[in-house]
């Protein structure tokens, strides 16, 4: 027993009492600095507006802990960095727990209750685990240094697309310095820990309970052998241990003190952000609270505390920067930089004891920390940023909140303003008369039921583009013919239908969205049906996720799942397999927003097509550029458009015949991009509906397809 109790961690041995006292004073000072920093941060968040959190606290806590432990969000699309981070995380966490349990025994349990557990086999096993944890930590850190120093992935370049070289906040070298300081600090803490361990072994080599168990700390033991090899004796080892002990201890305490003031705080803010994550952040935007006098965000304090926490969670990993379609085509927007700008703004304004004057809280503009109009209007609300963020930063709701303020001020492209006024006046973005919404049915050889007059099984919400755009009308007529062929009892709302409002809401025109949603919920309420189907992923998203807030709850599906079922039930049969080499573009609102990844692919397989995926597919699908109201805003002349960028990606597939889409706006955007990129004639853009039609020539050909 006594032998076992002697096998333990050497702490303050041979320290004069004054030095031990000094260490405690410094330790408490570091904790005080940490606590004050935390207080300042919490005070900053509390200066934000109230936030409503989605879901219960325990499931959110469970989800957060699971993500922190499995690192699933950190390793997506960058497994090497994710793996290295996992090594650092587990290494650091184990070492921290190790140190914390020593404190627990030495300063709390033993003095108060006489409980000791840090000895014998427990100590030895722990010692081995911590030694290996240190290896993991250092290996992870070294990879991160190689990555920053040599691999240099473009997403880690802090140059901003919304600033010019020479601007004070263009490429922010202070970020690079902080990144390197963080890596070096951790590396030095880890490395000196090992040398300290080795020095202690050399110093106490004469003590059997220390020396004979040294291989339980293999790295320390190896280093000790090396130190002895270069001639270090017990006395030298003791001196080295004394010096290094202080060095290691002081930087470790410094590290703790610095956590709330540096990027190190992400260890807490990221966990907080993950815990308050809203799984439908971009799919279901928040209404403007009745109590709020002015819509949207004008001042930094108009953000909710949750959004302010989001800002601090950002680790500058650059995944959103990499995924953003606006950034990819050179638009002045990087979701990363919106977040970092606002974070700097919050840091400058909300961390002082007294809140600055209201005029200094305005986040709109071009000064450092502010967000420019052009940046906000570049966003397609495609959700690529929200989807990939490893720490659950919700960029899209933040951008839409900022846009709401711009809309209120009328600060937008004149064409967008005109379109919004048109939608208000006519209920559609084409400026067509309401009565003409169902005009496409006239070309069909059969009548389409008015669901307001007679009950139907399936209510088809057609949407603006499918109703009015001449090219899409042909697809719409084809879908009607397919439904008729399959014997589906369906109807539409005719002039009772209005623009679904999905994109109006994402523009930030919440008042108009409310008018549209109320009108559609009322129209749907006047009809009798079992379920809703739509060919438009934008309408699908808002009806599915947002209409429930307006009292409209309906089972709704995208046409791809309905067609898939009709095939499965034998109500539609492929008679002429297509044998095309196709690629498929996941629409943002079907794929990323609503996980409708499988049905379109299964339809293509059913039709006999060979599907070749593009590099950016499924959750990483690349937006066509039409979302968030951008379809109503002209793209700047000369530059590349997202749809062109995407078509070029498809054009690299050898022997591609068909670029398949399942969204009316995609059809419009990509047929245009096919022409403007000079790929016309090489392959074609087709709606899956058109491919289905081609694979099963209808018994009674519909007049519209001649």
């Amino acid at each position, binding site marked *: 027993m006594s032998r076992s109790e002697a096998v333990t961690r050497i702490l303050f041995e041979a320290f004069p009492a004054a030095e031990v006292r000094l260490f405690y004073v410094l330790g408490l000072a570091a904790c005080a600095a940490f606590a004050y920093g935390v207080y300042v941060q919490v005070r900053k968040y509390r200066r934000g507006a109230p936030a409503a959190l989605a879901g219960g606290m325990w499931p959110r806590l469970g989800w957060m802990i699971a993500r922190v432990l499995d690192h699933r969000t950190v390793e997506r699309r960058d497994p090497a960095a994710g793996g290295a981070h996992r090594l650092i995380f587990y290494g650091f966490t184990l070492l921290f727990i190790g140190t914390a349990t020593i404190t627990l025994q030495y300063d709390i349990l033993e003095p108060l209750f006489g409980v000791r557990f840090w000895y014998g086999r427990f100590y030895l096993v722990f010692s081995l685990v911590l030694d290996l944890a240190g290896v993991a930590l250092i290996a992870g850190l070294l990879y991160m240094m190689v990555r920053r120093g040599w691999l240099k992935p473009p997403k880690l370049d802090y140059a901003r697309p919304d600033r010019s070289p020479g601007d004070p906040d263009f490429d922010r070298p202070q970020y690079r310095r902080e990144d390197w300081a963080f890596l070096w600090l951790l590396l030095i803490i880890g490395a000196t820990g090992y040398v300290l361990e080795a020095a202690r072994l050399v110093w106490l080599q004469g003590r059997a309970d220390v020396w004979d168990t040294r291989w339980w700390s293999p790295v320390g033991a190896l280093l000790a052998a090396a130190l002895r090899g270069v001639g270090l004796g017990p006395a030298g080892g003791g001196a080295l241990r004394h010096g290094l002990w202080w060095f290691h201890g002081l930087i470790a305490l410094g590290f703790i003190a610095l956590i709330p003031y540096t990027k190190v705080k992400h260890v807490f803010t990221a966990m907080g952000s993950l815990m308050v994550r809203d799984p439908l952040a971009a799919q279901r935007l928040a209404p403007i609270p009745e109590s709020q006098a002015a*819509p949207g965000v004008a001042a930094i304090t108009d953000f909710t505390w949750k959004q302010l926490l989001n800002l601090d969670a950002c680790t500058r990993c650059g995944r959103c920067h990499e995924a953003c379609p606006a950034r990819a085509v050179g638009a002045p927007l990087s979701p990363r930089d919106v977040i970092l700008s606002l974070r700097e703004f919050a840091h400058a304004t909300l961390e002082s004891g007294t809140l600055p004057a209201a005029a200094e809280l305005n986040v709109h503009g071009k000064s450092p920390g502010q967000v420019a109009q052009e940046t906000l209007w570049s966003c397609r609300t495609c959700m690529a940023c929200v989807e990939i963020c490893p720490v659950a930063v919700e960029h899209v709701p933040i951008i839409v909140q900022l846009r709401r303020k711009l809309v209120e001020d*009328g600060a*937008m492209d004149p064409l967008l303003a005109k379109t919004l006024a048109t939608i208000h006046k006519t209920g559609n973005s084409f400026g067509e008369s309401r009565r*003409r919404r169902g005009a496409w049915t006239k070309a069909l050889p059969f009548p389409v039921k008015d669901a307001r007059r007679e009950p139907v099984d399936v209510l088809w919400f057609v949407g603006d583009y499918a109703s009015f755009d001449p090219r899409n009308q042909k697809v719409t007529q084809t879908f009607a013919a397919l439904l008729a062929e399959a014997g589906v009892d369906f109807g539409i709302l005719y002039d009772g239908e209005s623009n679904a409002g999905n994109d109006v809401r994402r523009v930030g025109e919440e008042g*108009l969205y409310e*008018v549209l949603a109320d009108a559609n919920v009322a129209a749907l309420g006047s009809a009798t049906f079992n379920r809703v189907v739509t060919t438009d992923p934008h309408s699908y998203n808002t009806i599915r996720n947002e209409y429930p807030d307006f009292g409209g709850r309906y089972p709704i599906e995208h046409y791809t799942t309905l067609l898939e079922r009709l095939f499965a039930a034998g109500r539609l049969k492929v008679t002429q397999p297509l044998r095309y080499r196709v690629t498929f573009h996941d629409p943002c609102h079907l794929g990323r927003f609503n996980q409708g990844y499988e049905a379109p692919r299964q339809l293509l397989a059913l039709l006999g097509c060979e599907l070749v995926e593009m590099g950016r597919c499924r959750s990483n699908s690349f937006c066509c550029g039409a979302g968030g109201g951008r379809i109503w805003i002209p793209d700047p002349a000369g530059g590349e458009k997202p749809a062109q960028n995407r078509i070029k990606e498809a054009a690299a597939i050898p022997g591609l015949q068909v670029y398949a889409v399942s969204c009316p706006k995609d059809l419009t955007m990509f047929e245009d991009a096919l022409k403007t990129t000079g790929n016309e004639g090489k392959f074609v853009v087709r709606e899956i509906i058109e491919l289905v039609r081609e694979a099963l020539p209808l018994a009674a050909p519909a007049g519209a397809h001649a």
Partner: protein
Amino acid sequence: MKILVAVKQVAALEEDFEFRADGRDVDGDFLVMDLNEWDDYSLEEAVKIKEACGGAVEIVAVSVGPPTVDEALRKCLAKGADRAVRIWDEAMRGSDSIAVARILAAAARAEAPDLLFAGVQSSDQAVAATGIATAGFLGWPHAAVVSQFTYTPGAATAVLRRELEGGLLHELEIRTPAVLTIQLGINTPRYASLRSIKQAAAKPIELRTLADLSLNAAEVGEAGSSARVRRMYVPDKGRAELIEGSAAEQAKRLAAIIRESTGAA
């Protein structure tokens, strides 16, 4: 400082429409009503003057018409008008531009503004007389088709530019109070968010009658108008045909058309 902005609610045709039983106008069921496009610009010009001087300017939107016109006036309130005045009396029905000008002049005397803005014309009737006729009744200086305007509230004169034919510009200095008809493109009218329109719905719209403006029934409506619509109709359409096919086929078809139209067939 006060600016009176005279606005009109104009009608746009639906795709298919029918005429009224008396044949003098389109049946109201087939009309989509909205604020006249030119008035968007004249209101914006007034709001810009107000914003530039920090707000010591009162903008009053005024319109002649039945209660349905309130919608257009609300839009003006949403876009920055401080007050809205609707002038109506059943006797005013059928007023032509000159009669409307007489009514507006009476309203201007009551309001005593420093400036009166009107659109160059209305998009539905396109008479382009109301604004200048109002200046005539008031005996105020006036300028038509203004494409640039500079005025500091309180100043005795304003400087403006008008576009003339042949790319010429006319720069004028004008004494106030004055009447100006504003051209499209002088500014970029702001967007009135639905939220601001809803909030404007809570603001009152002041009603003025014949008696309020000391007018009598004979001065307004058809009685006070010097022109009367006889009928409104769709002219017979001319014919057009796109000739397709090879050169020989096109020539053959062309020859047939010529023979047909000269009666030689």
